[in-house]
């Protein structure tokens, strides 16, 4: 085989190799990064707050079929947390991200328990492929206790409203009979 023919065969093989090489996966999280801001939030019990998460595609191909999911947990043992009580829209289905592109999501929540909590956003593929989700840094949420109900204050209402209505009914009846 001549030198030129060998070179040509190698070139063809390389081109065929490139053409036949597996393409980049349509859904993949390996090149996705998630950031959040702010990273520390303080509020009172019942307080409403929001934070922003930014999901960026750092890869060279489009990132499609991604789901962003919000989670919250107590950093202290013994506090039961149901994330559904904190936010009603915890799962967001993302539009495709071009290489280098990013999307920003605002998450609105309400603190329904007091204490120390961690909040994070996880991004995973909607295909359900067994790849580890990409998570954001944890947001440290500090919820101060607040007295939301002064139980004793209801007594004047419970006594006063029926009393007022009762007196009114009696007065009307006496006046009519008179």
């Amino acid at each position, binding site marked *: 085989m001549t030198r030129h023919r060998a070179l040509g065969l190698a070139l063809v093989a390389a081109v065929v190799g490139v053409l036949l090489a597996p393409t980049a996966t349509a859904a993949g999280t390996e090149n996705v990064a998630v950031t959040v801001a702010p990273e520390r939030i303080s509020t009172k*019990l*019942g307080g*409403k707050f929001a934070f922003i998460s930014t999901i960026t595609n750092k890869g060279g191909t489009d990132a499609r079929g991604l789901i962003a999911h919000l989670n919250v947990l107590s950093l202290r043992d013994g506090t039961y947390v149901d994330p*559904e*009580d904190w936010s*009603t829209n915890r799962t967001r289905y993302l539009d495709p991200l071009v290489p280098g592109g990013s999307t920003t999501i605002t998450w609105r929540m*309400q603190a*329904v*328990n007091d204490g120390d909590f961690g909040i994070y956003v996880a991004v995973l593929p909607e295909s359900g492929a067994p790849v580890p989700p990409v998570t954001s840094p944890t947001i440290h949420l500090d919820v101060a206790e*607040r*007295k*939301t*109900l002064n*139980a*004793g*204050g*209801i*007594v004047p*209402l*419970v*006594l006063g*409203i*029926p009393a007022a*209505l*009762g007196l*009114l*009914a009696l007065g*009307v*009846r006496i006046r*009519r009979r008179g």
Partner: protein
Amino acid sequence: MTAVAQTSDRTPAERSAPGWLVVLHQELHDLWLGGRGLVLSFAFSLLVGIIAYLVATNTDLNFLEQRESTSLTLQVAIAVGGLLTLLVAADAVSGERERGTLETLLLTPASRRELASGKLLAALSLWFAAFVITVPYVWFLGHGVGIVDEALVAGLAVGTLVAVFLASLGLLVSCFAASNRVSLSLSLFVLLAFLAPTQLPAGAQQAWAGDLLLRVNPLTAGERYVSKIVVNGHNWSEDISWLLSPVIGAVVFATAAVLVGGRYIRLRGGVSG
């Protein structure tokens, strides 16, 4: 007997106010100045007050449970306020029949539909009174968790739809019932039937059949909608499908009560009249 001043050509005067408005005014007068409305409202205020007191003085009440307590108070108000409306409406025609006062009403120029409309609107006043009584309790329970506005608006909207539905149902039954006792009994039975699905086990309620049953029932659908607004913090449009049956129920039954029921206001009760 002295002669009353007569019009020169004896032609009757054009009605200065529409018949339904005159009937409404008199019904409100009879209901509230006659005393029955105030007595019912007093009883209602006792019930709501006791419930609000029991939930408020539960020292273990956390934030969510406080929301649920607010929702519970509101739902009791809607159910019991609706019951009062139903009872007044169920007496509207059959009661007049038994008291012997229906014939003189039928002898006036007011049409039967005007009679039905005026009585229906008067019955609704019980619901609005119940709502006003409930406002301070909802404020007390809900202001600490920031849901007073949503709770009151949702409660008023849903409660009004439910009250219109129940009042219309009561009026329809009253038009056709052979006696006042039958009218009241039948109306109460229907109300209990509408409330029965709430007693289904949680699992059954979540199954498709149970869910359908809850959705087509204006009472349970309305209360579920209120609960989602107040307890779960949903916005108005998120669960709007739950409002479908209360709206349809209110519109359909109110129309039927005035158009069909009004036509069948007769001296003798019963289907054959």
